[in-house]
């Protein structure tokens, strides 16, 4: 099976590009894709989100499960970032850890498999229709307190029961969209109103066009002002 993937992103309006705290990773050859949304209340969140997506596409969680998979990255994160935190408040903040959602998708034997912690979403578009939404299916399910993966193990106790897994078949020309929460929420609202948000997004073919589209949605109040990321995977015909 062949697939091509493209990623788009836009930082929160009013923030600089280097303050963007989502992350995405695409390994077309291995057919692995991931997005993550580093929680803005935490520090070194982008670094944590990047560790998660990079490892997902290079070495996705095995049968040992997510818990075992996350542990070495926690040490990597702490080793890289905690020593930078020398001021008392930075040390306290770093001790609290960074938090991030994770949505990872792999293709295997003609099927997609997805893993999700938090509210980054996967949408499967087939024959001009939204055929599957995961892990959230309705716009009203978004709230400000998603369960997120932490870079400190003590904060993950609640997470293990909240890991969501899903899978489905893949057909030629299927389109899979991975999105962080603000865009995913907009997407579900539009779909619930009978519109075709995937078609609107398809028009934004370049990064500039995507940024302009996001700005337009934000200024109209349709899109929450938040870091915004999308990965589009197109299954070859």
């Amino acid at each position, binding site marked *: 099976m062949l697939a091509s993937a493209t990623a788009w992103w836009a930082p*929160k309006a*009013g*923030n600089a590009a280097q*303050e963007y705290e989502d992350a995405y990773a695409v390994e077309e050859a291995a057919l692995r894709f991931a997005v993550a949304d580093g929680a*803005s*209340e935490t*520090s*070194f*969140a*982008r*670094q944590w989100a990047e560790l998660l997506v990079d490892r997902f596409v290079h070495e996705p969680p095995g049968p040992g499960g997510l818990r075992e998979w996350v542990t070495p990255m926690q040490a990597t994160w702490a080793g890289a*970032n905690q020593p*930078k935190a020398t*001021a*008392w*408040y*930075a*040390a*306290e*903040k770093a001790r*609290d850890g960074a938090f991030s959602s994770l949505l990872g998708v792999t293709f295997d034997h003609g099927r997609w498999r997805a893993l999700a912690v938090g509210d980054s979403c996967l949408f499967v578009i087939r024959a001009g229709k939204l055929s599957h939404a995961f892990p959230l299916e309705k716009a009203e399910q978004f709230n*400000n307190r998603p369960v997120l993966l932490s870079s*400190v*193990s*003590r*904060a*993950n*106790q609640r997470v293990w029961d909240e890991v969501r897994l899903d899978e489905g078949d893949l057909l030629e020309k299927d389109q899979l969209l991975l999105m962080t929460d603000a865009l995913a929420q907009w997407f579900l609202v539009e779909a619930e109103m009978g519109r075709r948000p995937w078609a609107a997004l398809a028009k934004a073919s370049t990064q500039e066009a995507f940024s302009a589209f996001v700005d337009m949605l934000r200024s109209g109040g349709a899109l929450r*002002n938040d870091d915004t990321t999308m990965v589009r995977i197109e299954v070859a015909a």
Partner: protein
Amino acid sequence: MSYEAEISRSNPSAFLFLIDMSGSMTDPYAGGKRKADGVADAINKLLSNLSIKCTKSEGVRDYYEVGVISYGKQVQPALGGELSGQALATISNVANHPARIEERTKKEDDGAGGVADIQVKFPVWFDPKAAGSTPMCKAFKLAHETLKPWVDAHKYSFPPIVINITDGESTDGDPTPDAAAVRELATQDGNALLFNCHISNAQGSSVLFADAEEGLPDQFAKLLFNMSSVLPDAIRDGAQGAGFPVSDGSRGFAFNADLVELIRFLDIGTRPSNMR
């Protein structure tokens, strides 16, 4: 709509604490601590939490300006150390200039089924010096004087939140008109919010976010209740989310809260909306 402004570095918000440091604040509080010490711990903890909340990888972002005014023998700005004399300081200045940093021990879940003792830094900005009477009118006047230029300079900001913590009766007259003048200060996003915490000696169970003066044990509690702002939706939702029974009429008023409740009250009161 009001009270919806996003709090950002270009449109920061402000907190101003008015702390009763009259002689009676040396009386013991629930738990045996002197009231003045308990309130100082609560304020220091809150300033520490706010600093940490505004910390990002690169440092502290100035989402807030913060001030502490104490009233007792004198009415004056009460942050110590390098911030002495400043009525309002940016949160990054606050974070970087505590008067001193104490080491305290805290118990924490170690994530492996055990409990670990960990050392945490406890920065101190405010030391209690309780003496004199309770010039609350004068304190509200200084709050007004401090915040008037602030609201003029921050028209698009979430309005300032003023939190008054007292154990007693004003000794320089009825504070109602001066409190009303503070609440009249406004940005385009709404009027300044005034919260009152009454740590009373009177009998009676604690009430947080009261919605009626009935049940409050004395005139002074009722007076403070009536001076307190009705909670805007965002803060009311926060209080509800934290498990407090609230209604549309709930106000930023706490009566006889113990220290833990006082810290929760302050935490909810200082979580007005999303920071960008």
